[in-house]
């Protein structure tokens, strides 16, 4: 075994043990004949993940055994079924894996040979079991450890109470300050003591729920180096934001997806030194792991500067409307070759499932020749952030302190190509009125108004406000699902005086300021030439949500309650440029509608986007077979994804 942090091995043990439980359950369900339709896929993914993680922590016996199991399951997945005779050796191999995971394993040449032979014998051929019925090893008593198990909900309750106590504290300070008790000696002393106690309580409670990302990344640079050496590549891992706190439950499940992503990047992304030099890149590839809190979520990004996706994948992404959707399809592989370094088709779909299981989402960006960036967005149980509070036109706004570069008072302004700007230390920065940018009525500005310089996504903007109220640590509260279409706000915070501060997303502000005179939140009025979208959906809620998203982006929207309704509309008027449809609907399903459109005498080329709650591979396949141009799952439904897809298909 190579020298790897014992913390990492411990995490591997916990995860592998959970996956082995599921593998055994799934195998038994297959034997009984009541397994879920994706049972073989699930087995394959679990075994694949164990193999990958074991290789990463240096448990070579585990990865060797898992490798042949994976081989057998890969052919079962290809054939669409697992032969009954293969269940027994897989069960015994799972038991052997469990012994290894518990640190009591021995090499298994017999089992490896047996499973290899089983695969060679083929799917339908009977395989003689070498041993009698499987026996589940009796688990050893838990190792001596002073940890206790507490349901996550109890800690969440504690965190909620801490959040409320922080608010209570601010209110108390506000009241005491307002009533002139602030200067009283004893009161001041007790307030100070209370502040220290509260800080301690906050730290302890948050510490129960979160850990810094650094707790799982320590072994990664070494592992990356080893993997790179194995493949004859030069790779440097740069970790940014390792101190970012993440939900503990998420963090523990995150090491697996991160390992997947790093292996993918090294295995398929980063080129050999010669290839890189020929492409004009430095011989040493760069791999970046970055974590950053944005409001009530944390973004974890894995980026490489390797070869990126192929032209063929790019073309497929264009056709289907979303690169993320293409790359996260089950069975999609970024590599042609099958190697032990990275997988054969497992990877991003497993990472996506993980991210979604945590209540998060995944997004992939890549271009041929220009590397790949995978972004995981993960929620936080208690989101505390430090903000700079400002006032403008009667409202209080908060900017995350991490994005605030400086605050100055407004002196002379200059004009660059008709746009206002200020000059700071020889650099000119675009100037905008905060009120106008968020879409509020622009009130007159005060003289020598304070200006806050925000930086995000590599751009800057100087924002004029009325007053700086100071820095405060606040609890981020969501504005709720009814207001989720407002991308401008990260959420809101309640201040000591009971007022609400609107927390603004600096990235959106910076983007909005870059569009001359047009505030991002002002919905463009649909022009007569705007493309027409037909939204087909039986749920009124979803139908209206989609309508509002599309109309806000300037499309003209027509709605239909089901496939038949939609077809009637298409047959009658016909002035439609794109169809967005649900699958399960009364009268006529989205699949039938798609087929009817493809068979239509004059409208067979009409682009169709399928949006559905069904995310399994079969359904996706049915949609694709019917001729849909793009396929999106509601669970991961994101308005940016929808708009991006629609935009691509109607060519705006």
């Amino acid at each position: 075994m190579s020298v790897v942090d014992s913390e990492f091995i411990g995490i591997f043990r916990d995860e592998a043990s959970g996956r082995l439980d599921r593998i055994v359950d799934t195998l038994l369900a297959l034997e009984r004949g009541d397994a879920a339709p994706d049972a073989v896929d699930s087995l394959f993914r679990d075994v694949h993940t164990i193999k990958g993680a074991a290789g990463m922590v240096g448990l070579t016996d585990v990865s060797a055994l898992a490798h042949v199991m994976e081989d057998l399951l890969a052919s079962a997945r290809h054939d669409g079924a697992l032969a009954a005779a293969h269940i027994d050796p897989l069960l015994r191999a799972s038991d052997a894996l469990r012994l290894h995971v518990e640190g009591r394993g021995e090499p298994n040449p017999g089992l490896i040979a047996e499973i290899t032979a089983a695969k060679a014998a083929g799917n339908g051929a009977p395989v003689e079991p070498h041993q009698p019925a499987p026996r589940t090893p009796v688990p050893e008593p838990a190792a001596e450890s002073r940890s206790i198990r507490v349901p996550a909900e109890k800690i969440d309750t504690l965190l909620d109470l801490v959040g409320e106590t922080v608010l209570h504290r601010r209110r108390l300070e506000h009241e005491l300050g307002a009533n002139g008790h602030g200067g009283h000696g004893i009161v001041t002393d007790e307030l100070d003591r209370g502040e220290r106690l509260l800080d301690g309580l906050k730290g302890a409670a948050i510490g129960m729920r979160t850990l810094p990302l650094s707790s799982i990344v320590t072994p990664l640079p070494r592992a990356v180096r080893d993997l790179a050496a194995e493949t004859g590549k030069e790779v440097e891992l740069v970790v940014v934001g390792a101190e970012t706190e993440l939900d503990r439950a998420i963090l523990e499940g995150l090491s697996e997806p991160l390992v997947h992503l790093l292996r993918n990047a090294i295995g398929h992304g980063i080129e050999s030194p010669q290839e890189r030099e020929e492409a004009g890149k430095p011989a040493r590839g760069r791999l970046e792991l970055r974590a950053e809190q944005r409001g009530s979520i944390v973004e974890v990004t894995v980026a490489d500067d390797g070869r990126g996706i192929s032209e063929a994948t790019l073309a497929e992404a264009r056709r289907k409307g979303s690169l993320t959707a293409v790359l996260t399809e089950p069975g999609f592989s970024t590599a042609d070759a099958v190697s032990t370094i990275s997988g054969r088709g497992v990877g991003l779909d497993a990472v996506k499932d993980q991210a979604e299981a945590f209540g998060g989402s995944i997004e992939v960006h890549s271009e041929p020749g220009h590397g790949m960036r995978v972004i995981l967005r993960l929620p936080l149980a208690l989101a505390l952030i430090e903000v700079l509070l400002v006032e403008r036109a009667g409202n209080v706004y908060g900017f995350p302190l991490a994005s605030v570069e400086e605050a100055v008072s407004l002196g002379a302004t200059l004009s660059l190509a008709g746009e206002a700007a200020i000059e700071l230390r020889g650099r000119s920065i675009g100037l905008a009125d905060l009120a106008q940018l968020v879409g509020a009525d622009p009130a007159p500005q005060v003289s020598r108004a304070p200006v806050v310089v925000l930086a995000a996504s590599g751009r800057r903007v100087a924002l004029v406000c009325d007053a700086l109220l100071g820095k405060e640590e606040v609890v981020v509260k969501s504005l709720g699902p009814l207001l989720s279409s407002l991308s401008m706000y990260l959420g809101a915070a309640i201040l000591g005086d009971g007022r609400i501060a609107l927390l603004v997303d600096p990235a959106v502000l910076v983007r909005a300021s870059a569009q001359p005179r047009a505030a991002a939140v002002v919905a463009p009025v649909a022009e007569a030439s705007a493309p027409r979208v037909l939204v087909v959906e039986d749920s009124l809620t979803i139908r209206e949500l989609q309508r509002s998203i599309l109309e806000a982006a300037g499309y003209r929207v027509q709605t239909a309650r089901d496939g038949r309704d939609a077809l009637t509309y298409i047959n009658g008027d016909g002035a439609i440029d794109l169809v967005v449809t649900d699958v399960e609907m009364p009268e006529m399903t989205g699949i039938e509608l798609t087929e009817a459109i493809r068979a239509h005498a004059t409208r067979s080329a009409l682009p169709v986007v399928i949006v559905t709650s069904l995310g399994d591979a079969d359904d996706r396949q049915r949609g694709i077979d019917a001729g849909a141009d793009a396929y999106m799952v509601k669970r991961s439904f994101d308005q940016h994804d929808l708009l991006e897809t629609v935009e691509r298909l109607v060519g705006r």
Partner: protein
Amino acid sequence: VNGVHVRLRLGRERYAVPIENVLEVAELGTLSALPGTGPAMLGVRNLRGQVLPVFDLARVLAIAADAGLPRVVVAEHEGWIAGLAVDEVTDVVALAGAAEPAEAESLSGAILEDDQLIGILDIERLFSSLAAQAA
């Protein structure tokens, strides 16, 4: 229509919300405007430490109300929560009877009581129209 409802008044019109959809009735309180939203969105308020979005129910239903809208019905459906500003919350009563179809999309129907037509609000449909009008 059959079940307990919270009845409310908007101008001269009367409406009822199924009690399952009502969390509480509150004062309008102090609202913070939420720039960038549509006219039916009045703003957000601090309701015991939670941020509650408050909508102008009269504007959503396109009817005339008194000025002020001093009361807020805190409505809930499948975890979605919104405050609906109204003129008055009159009472909580069991309503039973055959509903007549209503024109408005946010209503599940209407019933006649004491010579007055009471519109029964369909909170799910109302919320989807609120979500559509938010931005």
